[in-house]
């Protein structure tokens, strides 16, 4: 059974610009996307900034109406039946906002528990359990303004689980967390999946999507450019090898030159402190290394480590969205 259904979903944002001659600027955030999520599935939505991930989540959580198309959650239409959907879903938008900083963590949960009509008896049992689950036991009575970013994020998780929702929408939940905190949060999300909760997760972190999601939709410029399992997505680049070359101070024309070499499918550049990493998608495997290194050296560039490896989900993603990460 499909818990989430999206058909030809479109969303246009309109903003007025200018002072005297006001003009309406339109931005197409979603351009007719389609996908569905089945019960108990952990579904990932990947895409660069501004691709339409958060817009999709906001429409599904009934906070935004689509311009065209249809979306339903648990069989209810997100525009007409919003009051039927809300008691059964939970959502988190990444970041520290969305909590009352002048209240304690405990008071925050009491507040939201009442918004979800949870009786005081259930609250007394459930809230301490949730503090324990998210690792904030003993910090309940401290004001949220004194919490670290990771603690706030964990309080968000506790908040979203208060009413035991069937469907969870997690929009970049690990954003800004330290590695240990992010790992704990990922484990908590996996545990929720074991409880047969349907989860829609958006993230920038490829390894996170790879490790957690059963299926992933890659969204770019408001369109779904690929939808498959992580293994299926990696197959998009199965014919390629990835050559990573460290270079110091690469000029723009070097990228163009390498792009034109035989056996080079795509080139992207990633800044790593003082150096850059050239990531080359090559159908020629290790054979592409010699001409690329030679080209770089002929341009007088200093070349560092060179690695040839199998493609990852990130490589598939980079190919799909054309170099944007």
């Amino acid at each position, binding site marked *: 059974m499909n818990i989430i259904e999206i058909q030809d979903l479109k969303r246009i944002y309109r903003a007025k610009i200018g002072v005297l001659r006001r003009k309406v600027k339109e931005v197409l955030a979603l351009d007719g996307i389609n996908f569905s999520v089945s019960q108990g599935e952990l579904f990932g939505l990947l895409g660069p900034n501004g691709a339409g991930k958060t817009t999709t989540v906001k429409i599904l959580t009934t*906070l935004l109406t689509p311009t065209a198309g249809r979306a339903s959650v648990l069989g209810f239409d997100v525009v007409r039946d919003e009051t039927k959907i809300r008691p059964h879903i939970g959502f988190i938008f990444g970041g520290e906002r969305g909590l009352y900083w002048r209240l304690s963590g405990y008071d925050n949960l009491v507040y939201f528990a009442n918004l*979800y*009509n949870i009786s005081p008896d259930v609250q007394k049992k459930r809230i301490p359990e949730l503090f324990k689950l998210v690792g904030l036991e003993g910090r309940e009575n401290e004001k949220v303004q004194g919490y670290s970013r990771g603690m706030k994020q964990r309080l968000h998780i506790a908040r979203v689980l208060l009413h035991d929702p069937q469907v969870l929408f997690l929009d970049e939940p690990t954003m800004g967390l330290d590695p240990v905190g992010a790992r704990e949060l990922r484990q908590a999300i996996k545990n929720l999946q074991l409880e047969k909760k349907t989860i829609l997760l958006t993230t920038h972190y490829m390894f996170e999507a790879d490790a957690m999601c059963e299926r992933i939709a890659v969204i770019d410029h408001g369109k779904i450019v690929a939808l498959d399992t992580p293994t299926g997505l990696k197959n998009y680049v199965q014919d390629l090898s990835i050559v990573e070359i460290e270079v110091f101070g690469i000029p723009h024309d070097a990228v163009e030159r390498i792009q034109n070499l035989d056996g080079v499918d795509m080139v992207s550049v990633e800044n790593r402190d003082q150096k850059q990493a050239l990531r080359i998608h090559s159908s020629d495997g290790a054979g592409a290394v010699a001409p690329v290194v030679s080209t770089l050296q002929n341009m007088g560039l200093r070349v560092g480590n060179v690695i040839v490896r199998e493609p990852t989900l990130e490589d598939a993603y980079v190919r799909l969205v054309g170099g944007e990460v």
Partner: protein
Amino acid sequence: MMLSRLRVVWTVFYMYLKQIAIDGFIIFTVIIQPLLVALLAIYLLRDSDGFQAIYVIVGSALTGIWSGTLFFNSFNIQSERWSGNLENIIGSPTDLQTVVLGKALANTTISLGSVLFSYPIAALLFRFRLTIAHPFLFIVSLLLTILALMSLGLVIAPIFSLNPGNIMWINAFEFPMYILGGFLFPVLMLPAWTTPISYILSPYWAARALHDTSSGITFLSDVLISWGLIIFLSLTYLFISNWLFRVLLRRAREKATLGLQ
């Protein structure tokens, strides 16, 4: 259903009071500003015929109550948006109006602090003997004042949230109510064309009821008329507020204004 809604109102009321009780802006609006108004009014009016200290004190307290109602309710929904909580509230099974009702109740309660502080401070400073002519009727009037301002607060909140740019007009609404509401002097002193405006403002009837019951009444029927009109206008405001909230929520979902972009 009703019980859970009341529980939400109480929770919002209590939690909101916890957050704002020590806010410097609130202390100024509720305590210091009305006191300054009271001092000015007493200095200006104390040698005039028919001067009644209790009238000035009640009036200056009303200025604090109105300023509090106006300012706090104008930011009621905006503050939720700024803190990122508006989406959490809208996305919950509780309707926004219930949450705002709890906040409006807290705002009015805090604003009533003006009454509590104005009386003893003015009495101490000017050595006036402040007596309330009809204490029981005064307390009923005070409770109806809460109703009047809370319902007006529920109209103010969505108006200032429909278009965030409206916020800049807040100050323009503060002083006219002092005058049209008859807080410090009777509206009979104003041009006749302003009287109908005063009549559709519940704070005017609240001010009349409070003035009459504190200064002394000739006819009980005058107070009963004020009470009746407070109730009638408050119900009208609640009806208007209900419509405004529906418009606000529909537009916010269409225009994507629930969260900060």
